[in-house]
């Protein structure tokens, strides 16, 4: 009997010895998974969707914006985290033969207006000033919460803009425009105020690529529907409604997004290929040089969805501090700060200097 005990003990030890490498392998797998868990540095998602043109014949711009809104909402971003700006009301326009609907596919296949759309900035409230205030957060304190972009430094923000544009500008409401320089400066303000972690900027206008030419803040990825000198074209007219329903680029982006679900692992490189020249007639462009991560590691749902990641594990694991993504972004700023001398307030009214100057002047005059 003692022999069996010894034998069982030995067998257990042997089993334990044999299983040890497997255990460590499993442990490293868990750590890899944990690593993946925090791969992207964001904890919340926001979306700012802007349609800048009004009038009935610009129906397609509203339909564009609403289709992105629909996808973004479906993939998990709640209305409280979406700022939707529509410059005109197409659903309730007297010319709409089907009131309270906005269709994206002809023959009324898909109503992107839906039942629970929540428009934050509507009609004449969509102005350049309001847009920039939303982005930079310089908003009067009386603004309701639904009209604010309350993002922090762990937010991934999707910004989608559509309308009529040209080389270096985007037209708002037929009366004003925003230039690419203003936009780039607004993003820089957002960066300095730590209002985003990563930003995806999509624009569907004529000559859209000119709008992202001037960006200079880190962690921005940009897509546009056409290059400078090209027009973005509309997709299909609907004879029942009497207008063009969608623009080509956004139509194919919508079709692409309809395939995405919160668990999909599709990455940004697929989004870059979504509309080849044969379908879009214009040449879509993108810009990733300001972005830290490789686009193939960036999931679509990092920007278009708000994915609550849940992983069930039975092992324990020790968490390492986050990898270099965050540190590298702040390191440069810190170094710059150390080199500068400490700041002090400038004198608002240098009295001594004024008196000195005055006395000098009097002497010269001969008083």
């Amino acid at each position, binding site marked *: 009997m003692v022999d069996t005990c010894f034998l069982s003990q030995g067998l257990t030890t042997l089993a334990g010895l044999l299983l040890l490498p497997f255990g460590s392998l499993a442990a490293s797998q868990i750590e890899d998974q944990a690593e993946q868990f925090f791969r992207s540095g964001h904890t919340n998602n926001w979306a700012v969707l802007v349609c800048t043109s009004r009038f009935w014949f610009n129906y397609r711009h509203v339909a564009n914006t609403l289709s992105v809104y629909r996808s973004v909402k479906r993939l998990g971003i709640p209305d409280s985290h979406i700022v939707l700006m529509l410059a005109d009301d197409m659903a309730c326009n007297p010319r709409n033969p089907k*009131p309270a609907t906005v269709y994206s596919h002809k023959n009324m296949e898909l109503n992107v207006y839906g039942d629970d759309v929540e428009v934050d900035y509507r009609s004449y409230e969509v102005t350049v000033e309001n847009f920039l205030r939303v982005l930079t957060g310089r908003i009067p304190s009386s603004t309701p919460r639904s009209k604010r972009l309350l993002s922090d430094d762990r937010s991934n923000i999707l910004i989608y803009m559509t309308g009529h544009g040209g080389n270096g500008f985007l037209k708002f409401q037929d009366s004003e425009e925003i230039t690419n320089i203003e936009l780039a400066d607004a993003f820089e303000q957002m960066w300095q105020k730590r209002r985003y972690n990563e930003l995806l900027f999509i624009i569907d206008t004529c000559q859209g690529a000119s709008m992202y030419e001037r960006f200079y803040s880190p962690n921005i990825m940009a897509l546009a529907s056409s290059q400078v000198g090209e027009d973005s074209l509309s997709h299909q007219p609907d004879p029942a409604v009497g*207008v063009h329903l969608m623009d080509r680029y956004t139509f194919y982006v919508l079709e692409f997004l309809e395939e995405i679900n919160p668990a999909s692992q599709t990455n940004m490189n697929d989004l870059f290929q979504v509309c080849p020249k044969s379908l879009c007639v214009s040449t879509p462009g993108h810009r990733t040089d300001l972005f830290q991560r490789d686009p193939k590691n960036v999931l679509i749902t990092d920007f278009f969805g708000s994915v609550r990641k849940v992983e069930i594990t039975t092992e324990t694991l020790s968490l390492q501090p986050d990898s270099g993504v965050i540190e590298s972004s702040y390191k440069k700023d810190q170094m710059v700060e150390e080199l500068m001398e400490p700041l002090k307030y400038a004198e608002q009214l240098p009295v001594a200097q004024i008196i000195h100057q005055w006395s000098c002047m009097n002497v010269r005059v001969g008083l």
Partner: protein
Amino acid sequence: MGLLSDPVRRRALARLVLRLNAPLCVLSYVAGIAWFLALAFPPLTQRTYMSENAMGSTMVEEQFAAGDRARSLARDFTAHRRKSGALPVAWLERTMRSVGLEVYTQSFSRKLPFPDETHERYMVSGINVYGILRAPRAASTESLVLTVPCGPDSTNSQAVGLMLALAAHFRGQIYWAKDIIFLVTEHDLLGTEAWLEAYHDVNVTGMQSSPLQGRAGAIQAAVALELSSDVVTSLDVVVEGLNGQLPNLDLLNLFQTFCQKGGLLCTLQGKLQPQDWTSIDGPLQSVQTLLLMVLQQASGRPHGAHGLFLRYRVEALTLRGINSFRQYKYDLVAVGKALEGMFRKLNHLLERLHQSFFFYLLPALSRFVSIGLYMPAAGFLLLVLGLKALELWMQLHEAGVGPEEAGKTPGSSPPHPPTQGGEHTGPRQGLDGAETGGPHLPGTTAGLHHPHQLLSGLPTGRQHGACCCRHQALWTPAALHCPAGADEPSSYTPGQLVPVAGASGSTALPGRGLAALPGRTGPGRAGASHLRLPALPAAGSGPLPLLAALLERALLEVTEAARSSPRSLLPRK
């Protein structure tokens, strides 16, 4: 010296101009005619295109199918009309109300100025009936009009039937953003004018009409419909309106796109589209169409009820259904669909039609010539007049080089042409010498270079007159001198008033030695009337001196103030 201030060169230039003038005139005239005829050919004509964004390139599908209803309504209308002899107002009101419109009537009457004064004047009176379809979801700020003019000779009953059927169809749609007014007028254009005047609250033709009870906002566009029978072989479109005014070309483009879409045969001036542009037939036909349009515009008549709408800046067309001997006939449904499509597209408008041309000529329905391209033809023809005037001036100038002016004006400080200096002096001296007066007939110095130099010598107060004068000087060179130079003393008899063609009377200034004549009193000669001008030579001296004196007045306003200069003038020969 410069080309024009050097008298020798100037004379050479004058002779050159005189020699070349006749060929240039002929050439210009021929160029004008040729340009006009060339307007019908492809390089100068352009294809029509829709300029208005809101009415863009998308088509709408038409769903009108109530052809039978239209025909039965037309039959009823004819029957009632025959019974009552005039427009069956009660029946129309009832039918419109049953279709769902707000119905109003308007009575009007007009005393026609003919046949003649002696007999009792012919009184025309009638009643217009109109129904308003209110836009279901929009404020009634804008409206469209579909009008069917009914006259005693042209009953237009099929058009009334179609209009009522269309009204019933439109009433069932919810996509109207503008009100639609369905108007039936009596006595054709008289009724239309009465309605329009009452709608816009003006009275330009002296019509007595009752005020309108129902109104629908600013009218954006109107279509007048005339159908002679219930099947049509082609639709003729008429654009020329009152006084030759035309609707915006976009309205015609809209009609043309629906013609193409529905496969309707559409004509302009009763002519089909020229198909064959390679041989001579196509261009010849388009020249004919172009000339017909020019003639119709020139006649000034409104060639349809639409012509009266244009005066109120309401773009309007008349569509006439023609039933001729052709195999393929279109029924009322096809016409109704075209109208439905047009109205639906007009519904998309946000502003008045303003993007496309207001002045154009149409060699064919799908081609147009804009004013920028047909104006040069008229310009060439007017150039002939300008060349002739230049020739005349040069002739007078040549004739007047010899004799010199002499003496002073008997009166004091007359306005005299400053350009007196003799041939050798520059204009500045002429300015100075202006005050020494007399009929310093604008002598030898050419007027062409004068204006700016004259202007520089003027006190600022005179600037207005000077500017005017400069303008005139360029046009009618002032440097003419009166060929009757020898007659000066007699020709400047103080107080003599010479009737001058175009002068609107003269104001004699007793205190002065000269009769003051008003300035060129033609239109556009502002500011000259207050200036005193020398008396014209005696009427008997002949037309040429008279003309010369007239032309001389161009510079005279300028000189009025230049009297303070001490230097003496007249380097005369």
